[in-house]
């Protein structure tokens, strides 16, 4: 910023600015708030070759939430009178990590977590690279283990697609 000002001013006028605002230049400010990448978060950069696949959700930037796409976590923790906002957020992160690790390379969509009363429903789209029998094993395992961990009923709501290509909305 300062450089810009300096370059735009004539050299003779620099001293004038310094005279007028001596305090500004003598004090060094430390900005401690995390940077808010408002223009970058949740957006994908166009690649050179234009071959980066995006799902429909990825293709829509955050400001399209509630317009063209929806939330990934559904709960009432953050409305007035909601309970356990911090715990809910941490648990959701845990669930997402657990799901992507246990269902390795199977999810081709975001993992949607919906909470109603004490029930947590985990939804998503998976690809059919694994035998349905194994998928049923994973369903049983995930539902049971997560309910032991979070101590509430967990349900999976899965849909399958033949391959990853089926959920690609566009390439950029």
């Amino acid at each position, binding site marked *: 910023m300062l450089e810009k000002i300096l370059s735009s001013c004539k050299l003779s006028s620099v001293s004038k600015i310094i005279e007028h605002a001596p305090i500004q230049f003598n004090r060094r400010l430390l900005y401690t708030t995390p940077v808010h990448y408002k223009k970058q978060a949740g957006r994908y950069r166009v690649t050179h070759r234009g071959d980066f696949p995006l799902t429909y959700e990825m293709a829509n930037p955050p400001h399209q939430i509630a317009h063209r796409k929806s939330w990934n976590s559904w709960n009432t923790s953050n409305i007035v009178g909601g309970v356990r906002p911090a715990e809910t957020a941490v648990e959701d992160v845990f669930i997402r990590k657990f799901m992507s690790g246990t269902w390795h390379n199977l999810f081709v969509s975001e993992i949607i977590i919906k909470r109603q009363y*004490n029930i947590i429903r985990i939804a998503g789209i998976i690809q*059919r690279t694994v035998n*349905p*029998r*194994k*998928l*049923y*094993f*994973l*369903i*049983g*395992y*995930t*539902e*049971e*283990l997560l*309910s*032991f*961990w*979070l*101590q*509430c009923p967990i349900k*999976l709501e*899965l*849909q*399958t697609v033949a391959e990853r290509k089926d959920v690609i909305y566009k390439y950029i």
Partner: protein
Amino acid sequence: MMNIPVFLKSPRNVKQANYLSSLLYRKLSHSADVEEKIEIPKRIPRGPTDILRALESTITRDPTAAHYKYHDDPYLIPKSNVGKRTFAMAQEAGRKAAHWIRREHADLFNHREADPVIQAFLPRVVYNEDSEVTENDLKQTIEDVQVADAVIVYKALKSKGVKVSKETEQSLLDLLCYFNSEDTLSEEFIEERWFMQSSRSKERHRKIWKDGNLAEEIFISIENPTAEAYSTIIQGMTKHFQVTRAWELYEEAQNKGLVLSTNTYNSLIRVVNFLKEQYDMRWVLIVNLLTDMNKLGLKPNLATLNAILQALSTMGGGNAAKDNALKTLREFKKLGIEPSLGSYYFLLVTFCKERGPKSTILYDIMAHIENKEHKIRDLSDTNFFVTAMDVCRNHLNDVEMAKRVDRLLHIGNNYDLIGDSYKESIYYRHYFILLVTYVPLDEFMNQTYDKLVPNIYVPEPGVMLELLTQVELNAAVEYIPKLWSDMTVFDHTTRENLLELISNIMVNNPPADSELRERFSYIAWDMYNKIESQNENRYNKITLTGEMLGKIMTLLLKNDDFSKACAVMEKLDKGHSSIVGIPKFETLSLFVDKCIENKAPSQAIRCIQYCADSGFPEVNSLAVRLDEKLTLDEELLGSLTKAVGNFRLDNKSSANVE
């Protein structure tokens, strides 16, 4: 009021008329209110789940969807019996894996997330010989039906010399006797229970009581056992068919003058056929036991009735058993004990013997139980529906009755009484075979088959055979494509008899429209490929016979799939020494005709060669036809002559004869 119709004539006045009528209505209803007294209904106390139950009662089973235990996704919906079983069991196996992890890392799962704490989510307490236990732990394990844990806790208590109270000892004895001192499958694993029982029923009626187990030890260690302890141990022994010891203990208790419980008598009556060999002796023993009960002032209950009827059902097909069964029923009716479905099940077993006179008792039974909702009251209740359907099919051959039984099964929650997966499939097997034999095929296909298959019931190969036989009898070839695709999905295409039957039907009933012909040709080719691509190491592989190949070829040729037919012909020709049987001459003749049509003389000559090798006397006529229709060059003519000899000469000579 009279004016209203006049108002209504012009549309402009409609609004006015409405206003007026509403006024009138208000006035009328108001005057009615004055006369009527508002009665506020009494509050009905509701349970916490009553609303859910009310909602649930509005939903019936949707036959177009898979059972709700499966995921609603085309890839994850099972389509065959094997699929249904493996998917459900795989899910349960996954749940068990989670249980295993929780058990192995119990220290990690001790956090308390839920408020109030839900015990089911927390890891189980692990006991061993040295753990610090109190009587309360023992009570808790008994409460939770953890048989093995209860045994460990009990032993730990004994080794520490802790005195266990009489009541706890008795309830432990109850637990051990009921479960034969073995851990039982947790009630959580419903799928395993649903699919398991079929295998368990086979080992029925065999002594499974473990002699000298902890239950017996505890019983012996009790000084002066009470009547209660005697009752428990006798019931445990009879339940697991240690009959002789049970009877000894019964006599011991008699001598001591102890009054045993009604259920003990019931259990003894149930095993009376192990105690006495002859039928009349068995009945005498039952009567004696009942007289004893009467003397002691014990009131019989439903289990007594069912025990007597069960014992009678094992006493052959004589009239004595039947008479006694009816007498018993009458007697218990007088006592005000309503028979359960299990009682009727035993009646059916007694009356409808395989090699006995026909009995119409099911009609009388249905009069009592029809259009009612039944709850389980006895373990044997789950046998009723499958047996009733068996009787309908094998004993009565009565479709109407079968439909009535089926209607009863679908009233309220009666479907809970179907038992397990094995009983369910037997029930539907009987129902299907009966319907397919006696109901017009169209009606059966539209109303039953399309509705129940595949989500509720997947027909076994035997049922499919019956269905195909009916299709053959009715010449209803329009169902063949559908049935073939079902057979493919249900994994029936490895059954030789089914393949033979379906190909017979297709060959013997040549369809008129070209679409069906095309489908048939597709099926035939599919069949051929399926058999050809069988795994080499399969246990009972299907071997292609000459007849089968001939039928496949006919079907292909009818649809002008000449190249595919050539492939089949080649297979026949190459495997001439290994393939059993030969196709019909008509097929080969048809093939030659199609060769002529397609101008493929070399294929035709190969076929004629094959005919000659197979020893068909009519082979000359084929050669002649080929020669007439197509102009053959020298080389081809030479090979044709090589195959059948000098056919031109024969032809001329035969012409001369004519």
